[in-house]
């Protein structure tokens, strides 16, 4: 009973925040329009590098950074970029920031760079970034674009952490490399294999869908 009432108050809390227009830009990316669970964008990285929580976190933050920087720049340049070549210009801006991120991660941690592999470079073709550039940053002010990017980036990182955490706990019996499962725990090897990625995301989507349906009925 206490759990239910707690949930209700939490919902009320979210709603009261969401009433404020600028915070709404932030909140919507995290929850209501979560890029992975609701818009089903950016599937490739969210499945490919989510076999451990640390990889998922690094990937999420790298993507969020690129999203933030490209949203700022595109929003600043939105009056100067001709409409016909906008997509090409966005891609070039994004590619520049991704190259920057790639070299930065390489400088910080070679191990992390190796385990993420080509997927850092592949942030360029992450649909989330291009879709935010096209759907939001090219039409809104810098301040709003920053909030939007932060929300979407956080939402993406959150989704990635959910998938990565679940896969690591079940597949390797650890969380962020820290092994906590009892010795008799049989590791679900399938979870760290590619098929596990599909199943985990499908499972999370099922939960999300049933939650949404319950809410829309009520």
């Amino acid at each position: 009973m206490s759990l239910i009432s707690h949930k209700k108050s939490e919902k009320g809390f979210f709603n009261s925040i969401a009433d404020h227009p600028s915070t709404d830009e932030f909140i919507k990316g995290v929850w209501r329009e979560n890029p992975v669970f609701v818009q089903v964008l950016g599937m490739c990285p969210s499945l490919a590098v989510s076999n451990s929580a640390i990889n998922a976190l690094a990937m999420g933050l790298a993507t969020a950074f690129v999203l933030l920087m490209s949203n700022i720049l595109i929003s600043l340049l939105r009056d100067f970029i001709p409409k016909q070549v906008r997509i090409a210009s966005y891609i070039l801006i994004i590619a520049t920031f991704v190259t920057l991120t790639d070299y930065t991660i390489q400088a910080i941690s070679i191990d992390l760079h190796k385990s993420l592999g080509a997927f850092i470079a592949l942030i360029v073709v992450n649909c989330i970034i291009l879709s935010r550039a096209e759907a939001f940053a090219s039409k809104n002010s810098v301040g709003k674009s920053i909030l939007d990017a932060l929300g979407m980036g956080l939402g993406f990182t959150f989704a990635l952490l959910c998938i990565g955490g679940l896969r690591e706990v079940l597949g390797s019996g650890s969380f962020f490399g820290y092994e906590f499962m009892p010795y008799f725990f049989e590791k679900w090897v399938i979870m760290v294999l590619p098929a596990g990625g599909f199943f985990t995301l499908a499972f999370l989507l099922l939960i999300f869908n049933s939650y949404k349906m319950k809410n829309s009925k009520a």
Partner: protein
Amino acid sequence: MNDASLWSIFINASLINNFVLAYFLGICPFLGVSGKIETATKMGAAVTFVMVISAMCAFGINIALAAINAPFLQLISYIVVIASTVQLVEMFIKKVSPALFKALGIFLPLITTNCAVLAVALFQTSKGFGILQSFVYALGAGVGFTLALVLMAGLREQLEFSETISIAKGTALVLLVGGILSLSFMGFAGLGG
């Protein structure tokens, strides 16, 4: 220089390390255009074509970038090449078959942001393939992508007629089927060495 034989490169790229089912590349079209077998086949052919062309161009770009000593331009130049190839394919399809152009819809220009295409260019560079090997690798990757797309489309055409619980409708169901497909593709491991 990598000395893997052409045959093993092809088998590796198309079956063992299938781009969609083992590397999770090109998931968006895998979820989006896998409704009908016919569209899936043609989408696969278009992607394969773009892959091969851009892999060949990427080979040339690497030599050019090595000559002027600017490896940091790699990613940007790849993307430009891919975007222009997609533009070319788009104009070609629009001219030859307007019906197909409509069926593929938004997913045609989106080949630009298909991670599988960029990944082929990046992987062949990191593996140090020669020009013939790159060609076979890109071809194999394209065939593997088409195969996954067509298999999924066939399954989805059957699923249309079966009952599914309401919360599993849509993406979740496709992902579950994808997981099972991915499991079965693991059976190819060890093939071709």
